């Protein structure tokens, strides 16, 4: 056990001793400095471990041999140990990272670094207010010295702004401290009488000045221009210290002063924190300079922690957990991002494409970014979860909105940045070789981030039950990423299969159906992966993360597990989608809609815990308050995945641009996750009323319009995969409608549509994907006549669209038949009429698809096209086989589903007699119809072949155009603008109104951001005025007047 005073002794002693060294021994001197930092880290870490395992007791350290308050004393408790560990970690590894740079600049820089870290250590540990002031000044001066590491115009201006701002702040702190001494006769924090003394002017003003100046050091909006300029102006390696070390220390100081806060000041504090969080993330939207952007994010994150500190009294014993989870993530992630930025050294985030030349750094960047945004399995995920839950428990709805909105804004710019890195045109230059001392800190931060995520989850009473194995398996695929596709694909199929096998005994009802769609469906689509050659790097980890999420949804017993899995699925699918060709904007909008939806779900789950015990999913079944709100939030959240009208604009691009086997994954499988969520929600919650109206009634209408618009848009596409994508929107509209019926038959129909949609959409996307694979184009007007070249694909598409359109004898008809029965039963005739109208439109695009791709005339350049690869055809035919069986023997599918539904919705179930199903309105025999239709079809086919045997065939290029000269080459193709006549009639429905709406929202956000950020006009003086104004406003807020 080493007394913490030796941290000071070591850092100071070495700093003074550095004066002995000349420029020649600078390397030894630098190593010595790092040694002192390592020693400090060791001491604080030892204390942390000792205190945590309760082998050490928290200790007072007296100086001068006299007891406090007569001398200065330091305190080492768990909090101090944790925070000094964080600070010393940043000190040591930040120093290591900058080692070469500091060596070049001379020993003074090492002195400044040592003194900065020493100052911050004392700031955390001291219990004496004036001592706090002195060591705060030390760290400010040291920071001012480090800022000008690169002496140029920018860093000088930034440093000067920093000095004058912190100068004013320190002066005000000093005034507060001296008056505090005057009123209490002591400088010791523990001697200040607590209670609502802040309410009394005089004494209260002194406390107010102290608290406000600490708050100002944390760069609250809008008095933070100086901080932002520093982030932009200085070396990224220095920003690490400011953001991760100084911010951490000052937050701890604020924490120490919590007992002094009056409720009104605490409220002001949380208000300022919330405002800072939202505002700095909003302003980040327009920012393109990476370091300044990270600065905005940094200030926002610290604002969030300030908000949490302000709300501390309400968070109860969860306060520390939340604060540490959020702060720990901030420290490691922000340090890592700044360090990466220091390696890249580009002044615009669009130039960061160079990063992707280095796979390891790219992965690390992703890790830090996801951690900042609170994705699992990082600590902030659990922190945010607890925070939202506690806020909901206190009825703080507006705080929830603020936090979720701020997080969302942060996600916008971070994911945009990630998209640029992954997809913008690559830079020509290679990355400079990176020395180990720059790698090491980044890697260690990432490891600690992940480790602390597991730690936080272990400490959480519910999160410790989360099943991490699938995620670990997915992560293991990163390690074998260099192996060829064949091996990885086999392993992936094996692991998904194994999981399904292990899960199978526990599955029942809907969980069985959806587990089969998710995992067995996953295996079938993975089969297509064998068609790929080479390594296909990065595909398998991401696909498996998605499947880990999907499987997790099935396994989830608690809301936390459900949300955890939901987020995993979102991350995995995002990375799958962004692999597509022109996917940069689609992947972003996919992620933003998904996140928006995820936050709605988070809020709903938070609200569901109010007046409830535990977080099992069953709490949804007995809600006391907020039930309609929870229903709506959950529905919105799930409908972002089912892409219901209004929330659908991400889908067409994302699905159309994805790779051949990714399209079925994200379309046929992923969308069902939303459906699964809706089903779980409706089973637990039933229907909800709002203002006396049933919400499912609205959902029903939403389903109707989704179906119509989705189908209509599908009919008007030129791009075959886009057509299929819009068709998914339409079909899921049906499914939503079916669920909204809240009747046995409606659910039966919806479930059977979910299953058949999975099947036909997989075959369609694979078949069309195979065509695109060979033709290298997705435009239907560049295809045609492929029936002879790709007969297997043709048959697959033919059967699928028969199912899709709901034509007998195939199983799609069963869905339709059930639907119309259900509609009659419910009496929603208008909706029923519109739904059947949507079905008519579906005929149009089905016809267009098969006609313009496979029928008509073959293009000259496609004469040598081959059939799609075997591995792409195989999954299609597996599914087609199952489809035929289900069609011929409908009770094999519908009967068990009916039995699943009966416990929840018993009325109006089908009665089965062999393959004959009876409903209220009639009967249907799938088997018989199958035989009849097949018989008629064969007869007609034979008839046609017989009569057409003498027809003379015209050669393809016999045709001559009339004297018309086409403007565009594609206009000469009959398949171009195929449904021009319908477009004239109903095209108004197909206007991109909803896209325009969301673009408008984005536009408003960005222009507001641009307006507000003008307050940071770059003048140091303006920043001083902001600071003084800030003090005055907070004073008025706290005391309600002068």
């Amino acid at each position, binding site marked *: 056990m080493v007394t913490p005073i030796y941290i000071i002794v070591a850092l*100071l002693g070495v700093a003074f001793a550095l004066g002995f060294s000349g420029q020649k021994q600078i390397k030894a001197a630098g190593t010595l400095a790092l040694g002192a930092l390592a020693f400090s880290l060791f001491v604080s870490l030892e204390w942390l471990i000792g205190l945590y395992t309760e082998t050490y007791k928290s200790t007072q350290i007296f100086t001068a*041999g006299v007891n406090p308050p007569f001398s200065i004393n330091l305190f080492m408790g768990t909090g101090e140990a944790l925070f000094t560990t964080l600070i010393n970690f940043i000190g040591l590894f930040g120093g290591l990272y900058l080692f070469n740079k500091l060596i070049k600049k001379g020993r003074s820089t090492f002195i400044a670094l040592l003194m900065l870290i020493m100052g911050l250590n004392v700031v955390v540990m001291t219990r004496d207010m004036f001592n706090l002031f002195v060591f705060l000044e030390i760290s400010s001066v040291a920071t001012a010295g480090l800022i000008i590491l690169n002496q140029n115009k920018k860093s000088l201006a930034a440093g000067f702004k920093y000095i004058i701002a912190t100068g004013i702040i320190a002066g005000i702190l000093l005034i507060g401290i001296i008056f505090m001494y005057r009123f209490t006769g002591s400088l010791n924090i523990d001697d200040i009488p607590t209670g609502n003394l802040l309410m009394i002017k005089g004494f209260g003003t002194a406390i107010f000045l102290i608290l406000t100046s600490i708050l100002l050091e944390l760069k609250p909006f809008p008095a933070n221009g100086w901080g932002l300029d520093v982030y932009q102006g200085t070396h990224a390696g220095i920003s690490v210290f400011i953001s991760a070390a100084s911010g951490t220390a000052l937050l701890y100081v604020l924490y120490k002063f919590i007992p002094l806060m009056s409720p009104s000041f605490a409220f002001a504090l949380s208000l300022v924190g919330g405002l800072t969080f939202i505002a700095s993330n909003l302003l980040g939207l327009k920012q393109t300079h990476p370091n300044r952007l990270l600065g905005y994010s940094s200030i926002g994150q610290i604002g969030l922690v300030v908000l949490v500190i302000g709300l501390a009294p309400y968070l109860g014993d969860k306060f520390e957990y939340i604060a540490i989870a959020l702060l720990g993530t901030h420290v490691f992630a922000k340090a890592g991002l700044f360090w990466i930025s220091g390696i890249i050294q580009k002044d615009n985030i669009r130039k960061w494409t160079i990063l992707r030349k280095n796979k390891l750094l790219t992965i690390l960047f992703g890790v830090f970014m996801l951690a900042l945004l609170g994705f699992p399995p990082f600590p902030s995920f659990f922190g945010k979860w607890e925070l939202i839950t506690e806020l909901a428990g206190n009825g703080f709805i507006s705080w929830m909105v603020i936090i979720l909105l701020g997080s969302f804004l942060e996600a916008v710019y971070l994911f945009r940045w990630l998209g640029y890195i992954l997809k913008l045109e690559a830079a020509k230059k290679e990355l400079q070789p990176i020395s180990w001392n720059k790698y090491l800190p980044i890697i260690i931060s990432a490891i600690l981030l992940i480790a602390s995520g597991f730690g936080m989850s272990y400490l959480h009473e519910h999160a410790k039950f989360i099943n991490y194995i699938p995620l670990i398996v997915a992560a293991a695929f990163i390690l074998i990423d260099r192996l060829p596709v064949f091996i990885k694909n086999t392993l992936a199929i094996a692991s998904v299969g194994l999981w399904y096998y292990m899960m199978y005994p526990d599955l029942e009802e809907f969980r069985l159906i959806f587990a089969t769609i998710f995992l067995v469906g996953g295996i079938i689509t993975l089969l297509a992966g064998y068609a790929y050659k080479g390594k296909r790097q990065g595909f398998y980890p991401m696909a498996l993360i998605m499947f880990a999420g999907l499987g997790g949804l099935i396994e989830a017993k608690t809301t936390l597990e459900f949300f955890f899995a939901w987020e995993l699925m979102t991350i995995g699918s995002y990375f799958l989608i962004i692999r597509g060709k022109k996917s940069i904007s689609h992947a972003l909008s996919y992620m933003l809609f998904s996140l928006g939806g995820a936050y709605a779900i988070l809020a709903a789950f938070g609200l569901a815990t109010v007046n409830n015990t535990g977080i099992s999913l069953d709490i949804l079944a007995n809600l006391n308050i907020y039930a309609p709100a929870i229903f709506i939030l959950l529905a919105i959240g799930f409908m972002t995945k089912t892409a219901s009208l209004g929330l659908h604009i991400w889908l067409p691009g994302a699905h159309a641009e994805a790779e051949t086997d990714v399209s079925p994954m994200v379309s046929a499988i992923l969308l069902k996750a939303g459906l699964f969520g809706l089903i779980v929600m409706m089973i637990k919650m039933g229907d909800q009323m709002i203002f006396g109206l049933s919400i499912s009634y609205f959902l029903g209408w939403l389903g109707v319009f989704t179906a119509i618009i989705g189908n209509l848009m599908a009919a008007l596409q030129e791009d075959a995969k886009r057509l299929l994508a819009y068709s998914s929107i339409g079909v899921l509209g049906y499914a939503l409608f079916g669920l909204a019926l809240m009747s046995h038959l409606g659910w039966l129909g919806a479930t059977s549509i979910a299953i058949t949609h999975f099947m036909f959409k997989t075959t369609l996307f694979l078949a069309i994907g195979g065509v695109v694979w060979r033709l290298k184009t997705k435009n239907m007007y560049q295809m045609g006549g492929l029936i002879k070249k790709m007969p297997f694909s043709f048959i697959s598409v033919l059967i699928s669209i028969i199912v899709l359109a709901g034509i007998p004898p195939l199983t799609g008809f069963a869905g339709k038949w059930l639907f119309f029965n259900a509609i009659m039963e419910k009496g929603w005739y208008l909706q029923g009429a519109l739904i059947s109208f949507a079905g008519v439109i579906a005929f149009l695009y089905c016809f267009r698809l098969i006609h313009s791709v496979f029928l008509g005339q073959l293009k000259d350049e496609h004469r040598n096209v081959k059939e799609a690869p075997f591995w792409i055809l195989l999954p299609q035919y597996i599914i087609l086989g199952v489809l035929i069986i289900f069609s011929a023997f409908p009770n094999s599918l519908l009967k068990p589903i009916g039995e699943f539904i009966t416990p929840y919705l018993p009325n109006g179930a089908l009665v089965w007699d062999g393959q004959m199903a009876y409903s209220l309105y009639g009967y249907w025999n799938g088997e018989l119809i199958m035989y009849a239709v097949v018989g008629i079809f064969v007869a007609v086919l034979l008839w046609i072949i017989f009569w057409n045997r003498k027809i003379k065939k015209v050669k393809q290029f016999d045709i001559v155009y009339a004297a018309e000269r086409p403007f565009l080459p594609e206009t000469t193709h009959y398949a171009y603008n195929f449904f021009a006549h319908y477009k004239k009639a109903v095209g108004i429905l197909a206007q991109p109104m909803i896209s325009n709406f969301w673009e408008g929202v984005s536009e408003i956000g960005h222009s507001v951001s641009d307006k507000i950020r003008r307050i940071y006009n770059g003048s140091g003086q303006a920043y001083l005025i902001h600071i003084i104004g800030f003090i005055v406003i907070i004073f008025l807020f706290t005391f309600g007047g002068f």
Partner: protein
Amino acid sequence: MILRNSLLFLLLIAFAAIIISLFSTNYSEAEQLGIVAKHYAENAKAEVGAPNLVSAVVVTYRGLDTLGEVVILFLTAAIIGFMLKSKHSVNNSDKRIKGSEILETAANALVPIIILFGSYIFINGHLSPGGGFQGGAVIASAFVLLVMAKANAKLSHKIISFTESVSGFSFVIIGVLGIILAAGFLDNTFLPLGKYGSIISAGAIPIIYIFIGLKVGSELTSIVNNLKESQNIEI
């Protein structure tokens, strides 16, 4: 402009109101010492042994603050040295700038006396008004005078920085000796307190003051020296 200034003036008034509100309720002119000050008045003789209570507070009771303030000067001197370090390190301006004769002669006579006076101040810091900072500042003023008077005088960076480091390092060592030999960091009682009121008394205070004096003197000198040299480069 006028509008801007009047708005700023309003802001200043508002800020003044905050400051004045510090005096609003429970402020009154002090009639007696607070608890901590009273403790010092009564026990400093036994605990520290320095008649000058300010020194007792500065060096012992609040020794950590003093260490901090030494650090700030040290840090400032280091940063200034770093900022002013010329890229082409040696200035070969062989231009002989002649200082005034009177100044030069006076400087020759005064510098030793000033240094002596400074030393007196910090050696007697524990007895009478004064101490390391004051003494160090006085010593530095001697070097400022020297630098002013003799334009070409070069003070050796090495010696300055050596003095600085030795005294700073020793300060820390004395602090640690306090932990090992007495009751805590910077405890001055590991040396005998001696006869109250004599030069050699009050434990380690005089020694600490000597080091502080040397350190402050060398640091302030180094700042002035750096500024002066940087000026030469510009010409």
